[in-house]
């Protein structure tokens, strides 16, 4: 060790003490492109429901255009496309979409966990009346731990 220069106290490191910022724009653009590609602008807003949970929950294997959302609230109110619809109107709304999709339409039935089954059954009958057959009961994925506590 050299004693010159005050025993090393004044020695300067050659490494820069700044975070390198030249690649910052690249990182930002990378993230930007990721979000641009994955973004789907929402077409309708969610209703405030309590989601039922199920362990066998699976992803709907269909494009977004071929999924129709039917919300059933706890008091039996039915919402489609941000509009409160009477029960009898459900089949009239489903039928054209079913034909349009080339018999591929999936109905995502988003019923409140506490909604009495009579409402769910009535909507199911309306869907059947419209000719559609693919229904998905929307659920949240349930963890096994929580199931055991129940």
């Amino acid at each position, binding site marked *: 060790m050299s004693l010159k220069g005050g025993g090393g106290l004044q020695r300067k490191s050659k490494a820069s003490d700044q975070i390198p910022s030249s690649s910052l724009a690249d990182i*930002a653009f990378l993230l*930007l492109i990721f979000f641009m590609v994955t*973004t789907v602008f*929402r077409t309708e807003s969610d209703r405030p429901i309590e989601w039922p949970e199920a*362990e*066998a929950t699976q992803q709907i294997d269909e494009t977004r255009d071929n999924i129709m959302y039917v919300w059933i609230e706890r008091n039996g109110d039915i919402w489609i496309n941000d509009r409160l619809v009477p029960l009898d109107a459900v089949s009239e709304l489903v039928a054209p979409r079913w034909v349009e999709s080339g018999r591929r339409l999936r109905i995502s039935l988003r019923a409140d966990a506490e*909604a009495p089954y009579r409402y769910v059954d009535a909507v199911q009958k309306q869907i059947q009346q419209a000719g559609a057959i693919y229904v998905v009961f929307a659920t949240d994925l349930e963890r096994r731990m929580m199931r055991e506590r129940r």
Partner: protein
Amino acid sequence: MAILKKQSKVSDEIPSASMADIAFLLLIFFLVTTVFPKDRGLPIVLPEEQEEVEISQRNILHISINPDGTVGVRRGDSQNESFHRPHQIQQVWRTEVAQNPNLIAGVRTHPDAAHRYMIQVLDGLQMANAERISLQMGEG
């Protein structure tokens, strides 16, 4: 000639100093507006209208869901009904289907029973790989 040598002081490059700012602005916009779709659930296929199939009582397992969440299970050809919690249905179905591979689950839910109980039973059946499930509403 003097005119040809004259150089403009204005730079001929597009200024790139603010590029990162623009990128970050757009990035924040997309971060805020992004909603990842939540298209998940338990799929079932409803029977088409006027499609009724006669099934031997021997091949039906009647599962009735009561408003309090108890689930009664009865074989089609027997009078004995046993009661279970919704999350036990998976096990019940596995033991029953081991005895009769042609079994069909006839789920009958009381009109006042919460949708949640029906989902729990359907979940159990789907976890046990039951493929033939019929959903009906019971009498209130």
